[in-house]
Structures are given as structure tokens and as C-alpha cells.
């Protein structure tokens, strides 16, 4: 034995250590990713079912996937979802880790903004409102938020097993991830593909989910 003769103050914690050491179970490799996946999986599945059964896929899906605009929308939402998910995995650990790489979030936003600018400049002035309002701007952000709720709930449940120390940031990251995945799924229902529309309304839906996560984080993630 090494130095187990510790300071004599407070024998309670010495007894605690013996008790804890008596109940050691091996910890699975990649246990953290598994816990998050266990939360994310059922949430995502719920949202997939909501898109398929309640909203329904867009009628022209077969033709839509032949256009680049469909994939640009998907790539935009998926890149934000992925960065949000990586941030959740980082923030689930108590070590202070740099989050500077989250500046990459600006890249998809700027690319889509550039494309949106080109599309607006190309369009006849009378057509421009149609590009950024489409026909569903009123419901788009709210539906993205609604589809994000099961995913956000799952992620927050998964995080309760883990050890986040920055609870607002962790909640916001979970919100961004859930909003991003929800936007990816919503893209299979929603026929709007113009860059200004996606940039405004899909992003607003993701931002709402992000804000909701940030608001819930401190209350739900304490440990």
C-alpha cells in the first residue's frame, strides 16, 4: 500500500473511499459516446417518425433529390448539426477544453449567405420576396423547433449521466445539435430550397432550439 495514512481529520471520506472501491465496475470504452447516442437515438427516431407519418415527405422528393439545391440545404443543416453534436460531446466532460473551433459554424452560414446573395441579385425584383419568404415561412421555424424537441429531450437525458460544467453552453450546444438534426429531417418534408429561405427560417428554427437548450441547461443538467 502506498500512502493511505492520510490526515486524521474527517474519517468519513476515508471510509467512503473503501466503500466506493468495493463497487468498481469496468467502464466501457467510448462510454461517453454511447451514453449520448443512447439519448440521441430514440429522440431522432421519434422525429423521423413524425416527419414520415405526421408531416409526410414532400410529394416531389424523387425529383427534388436530383437538384443541387436540395443537397445544399441538407449540407447546411447537417454541418450545423454535426458541429453542435461535437460541441455536446466536448462539453459533456468536466475538463476545460477550448471551443474556439466552433468558429467553423460561421463557414456554412457565410457560404449560404453568399449563395443567397447571388440568387437575390439574379432574380427579378418582383420575385425577390418569394425567394426569402417562400410560401411557408410562418410555420418553418416552429416546425423545426417542434421536431427538435424529442432530440433535445434525448440529448439532455443522455447528458445527465455525464459531467458538463458549463450548463448554459452545454444546453445551447444540445439545442443547436437537436435543431440541426431536426432541420435535416424537416428538409425532407418542406419543399422550399432557396438559399435565402433556408438561411432565414431554417436557421431561426435552429436558433430557437439553441435558445431553449440554453434556458433549460442550468435547471436540468446540474449534478
Amino acid at each position, binding site marked *: 500500500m502506498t500512502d493511505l495514512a492520510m490526515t486524521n*481529520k*474527517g474519517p*468519513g*471520506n476515508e471510509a467512503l473511499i473503501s466503500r466506493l472501491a468495493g463497487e468498481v465496475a469496468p467502464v466501457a470504452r467510448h462510454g461517453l459516446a454511447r451514453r449520448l447516442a443512447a439519448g440521441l437515438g430514440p429522440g431522432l427516431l421519434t422525429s423521423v417518425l413524425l416527419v414520415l407519418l405526421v408531416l409526410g415527405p414532400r410529394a416531389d422528393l424523387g425529383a427534388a433529390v436530383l437538384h443541387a439545391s436540395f443537397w445544399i440545404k441538407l449540407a447546411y443543416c447537417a454541418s450545423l448539426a454535426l458541429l453542435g453534436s461535437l460541441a455536446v460531446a466536448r462539453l459533456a*466532460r*468536466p*475538463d*476545460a477544453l477550448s471551443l474556439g473551433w466552433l468558429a467553423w459554424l460561421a463557414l456554412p452560414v457565410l457560404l449560404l449567405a453568399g449563395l443567397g446573395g447571388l440568387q437575390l441579385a439574379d432574380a427579378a425584383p418582383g420575385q425577390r420576396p418569394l425567394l426569402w419568404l417562400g410560401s411557408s415561412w410562418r410555420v418553418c421555424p416552429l416546425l423545426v423547433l417542434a421536431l427538435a424537441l424529442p432530440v433535445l429531450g434525448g440529448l439532455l437525458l443522455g447528458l445527465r*449521466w455525464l*459531467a458538463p460544467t458549463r450548463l448554459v453552453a452545454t444546453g445551447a450546444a444540445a439545442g443547436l445539435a437537436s435543431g440541426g438534426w431536426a432541420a435535416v429531417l424537416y428538409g425532407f418534408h418542406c419543399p422550399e430550397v432557396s438559399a435565402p429561405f433556408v438561411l432565414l427560417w431554417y436557421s431561426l428554427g435552429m436558433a430557437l432550439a439553441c435558445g431553449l437548450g440554453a434556458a433549460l441547461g442550468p435547471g436540468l443538467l446540474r449534478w
Partner: protein
Amino acid sequence: MRVGEQQLWQWMAAGLGGDAAAHHHLLAALLPMLRGFFRKRLPGQGDDIEDLVQEVLIAVHSKRVTYDPARPVSGWVFGIARYKLADHFRAKGRHVPLEGLEDILLAEGFEGAAIARADVGRLLGLLPPKQAAAIRATRLEGLSTAEAATAQGIDASDVKVSVHRGLKMLAARVAGGA
């Protein structure tokens, strides 16, 4: 005895594999480190210190899945300890600021810090000058006890006693809604 990072890592790695003896060694080695960490930040609050040490030990045990073997064990453990300390401060609310003042001034924005300083300045005005000067030097200006003693021309134990009595009196006044 201070255990090296390498040794902590070996115990941690073995403990993650289910080795109870290694896990016991790890927790036992962390115990004095954690007591030192909290003693420095909560001087004279023995019960709170042991409670916090206990919470961190339990978290080290139950949250091991969040440890990344590619990173230092001590960074992970002190990350947990800092979180538990912040949580403790949050729970204690307004009774704590006088003790953790430097941290609070650093953590909050300039405006908050300026207001806090003004409030503290007003509170310090209620104390005998010697106690106020000792608190100002050691808690606000960041001098060590010895430096403050030299600056005031009194001896170090006198500074300590003044700080202690002054903080106690301020805590009583704050609690009483002064």
C-alpha cells in the same frame, strides 16, 4: 505525499478496467489533493470542505465515463472540483462573496465588478480602520499576509486576526441586511 500525474493515470486506467485496488489507490491519492484545493478556497470552513471533498470523490467514482485517457487525470479531477465549488457558492448565495471576492470580480463583467467594489467599499467603511485596511490589502489588492503586514507596519498574525474578525463582522452585517 504528492502523487505524480503518471501514477494517477496508471491507477485511473487500471480502475477503468475494473481493478478495485487501483481505484482505491487513486481515490486515496486524490483525497489530500482535494482537501488542499478546497481548504485554500474555503479557509476555516471544515465541514463544507469535507462535504465538497465527498461530493467530488463520489463524482470521480460515478462519472469516470467522462474521463478521456488522452488527457491528464488531475485536470479532469480539478474540473469536477471547480464545478462543485461553483455550485457550492451558488447554493450559498449572498453569504459567500466576501470570501471569494477576487474570483467573483474576475468572473463577472466590469459593471458588476464596479458595483461590487462600491458596495464592498461602503461595507468596509463600517469596520475599524485596521480591519478594513487588512481586508482591502489581502482580499482586494491581492497582497500576501506578509506583504500586507509590512505595508501596515504590524505583524502577520495581527493581519490575519484583523481579516478574520473584519470578515466575520461584515458577514454578520450582510446577513442582517446592512
